[in-house]
């Protein structure tokens, strides 16, 4: 049976007819051509299908597209802005946390969810947050390092941003 759904994906409003049995994962890949989100196990074990649903990390192979009606979805494609990589993506590259790359979008999305909640994660925090993401290549060390590097980069960018903000405020004060 088909149902019509309306949802926001990476900031864009989408309306589509979907089969009830279709997963959010298949809808993103086949319906919207957002192939960054990967299908590994299709049963909630590997994390390669990770997306943010209303800001929360979820395994999109365990969510039906109809369940996402009226919700907001962010995929890995939604993390970079106008061709500029997200600090996590930059850190994954500089730490060489990518080998075959199949797990990478899921890792980056889970890590993005973590950094929203916790800008100063310990190694243990990172490992716990990524416990649902399997990687068959890297051995995880580079991935954990990359997430902590990105967290540091985002903190210093935020500080620089707020300093710039303060400077701007000062300039606006009439002499």
């Amino acid at each position, binding site marked *: *049976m088909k*149902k019509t759904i309306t949802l926001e994906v990476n900031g864009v409003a989408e309306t589509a007819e979907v*089969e*009830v*049995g279709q*997963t959010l994962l298949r809808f993103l890949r086949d319906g919207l051509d957002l192939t960054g989100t990967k299908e590994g196990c*299709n*049963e*909630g*074990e590997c*994390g390669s299908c*990770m997306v943010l*649903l209303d800001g*929360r*990390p*979820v*395994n999109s*192979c*365990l*969510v*039906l597209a*109809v*369940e996402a*009606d009226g919700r907001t979805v962010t995929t890995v494609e939604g993390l970079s802005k106008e061709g500029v990589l997200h600090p996590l993506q930059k850190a994954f590259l500089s730490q060489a946390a990518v080998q075959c790359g199949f797990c990478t979008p899921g890792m980056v999305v*889970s890590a993005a*969810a973590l950094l929203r909640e916790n800008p100063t994660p310990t190694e243990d925090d990172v490992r*716990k*947050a990524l*416990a*649902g*993401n399997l990687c068959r290549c890297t051995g995880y060390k580079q991935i954990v390092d990359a997430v902590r590097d990105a967290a540091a980069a985002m903190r210093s960018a935020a500080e620089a941003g707020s300093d710039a903000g303060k400077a701007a405020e000062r300039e606006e004060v009439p002499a």
Partner: protein
Amino acid sequence: MPVDLDYLAPSDVEDAVALRASRPSAAFLLGGTDLLPQMRSGRRSPETLIDLKRIAELHEIRENADGGLSIGAAVPLADVETHPLVLARYPLLAECAKTVGAWPLRQRATLAGNVCNASPAADTAVALLALDAVVNVASTTGRLAMAISELFLGPGQTALMPGDLVTDVVLPGSAAGVRGSYQRLSRRKGMDLATVGVLVGKRDGARPSWRVALAAVAPTPLRVRAAEELLEAKGAAAAREAAELAVAACRPITDQRGSAEYRREMVGVLVRRGVESLG
């Protein structure tokens, strides 16, 4: 998945119960973390999914007059494990919830779902048993409350009738303040079911009360009253005897996660350690 599968998302409990009654082969859908894989593998084949997540009432964590808490069926485990009142009053529930699956899975998986699925290894069921939880159930004949101790009948089997909707799980005020540990052995730290799970809790007071409950070592999650009574009579000094009673009460099987002998042995070790840490 069947092509004619239907999906309904009612906005109140009465509608959900009525819809379910009118469609004998329907299933209630909460987080879907168990149901969807079961459907894909053909173990379950409902013709209609009745999604309960659009029912506002089921998303609440409410404080009750007796100092207890009601946790709505649709509250994800990730919210249970971080809720300030859960952490303050029922820290063992938070600790058990944290061991289920991995963090993203717990954004979808629910307490009610974990209970209804009735896995012998259900980590949260152990906490609920130890804390004397009650589940509230809605059906076409009205609402009733069922003690969690009467709920589990066997692997995947509960005393719920087809069409019964668990609306919330209630933790009584009398169990607030039980502290202790949930020790869990598994092959990998995330995303694996428990090979053995042992909860030991104690509520301090003039007459301390003890809780001993086990996961994955019997057809249902198990509470060992004999061990609790012994500890209440003799205190933590009776750790070894309590451990022996727990070993005698469990009925483990051998499977890919571990042998029955290993599980029995570990129940003894972990109960003893759990009691000693509260001595």
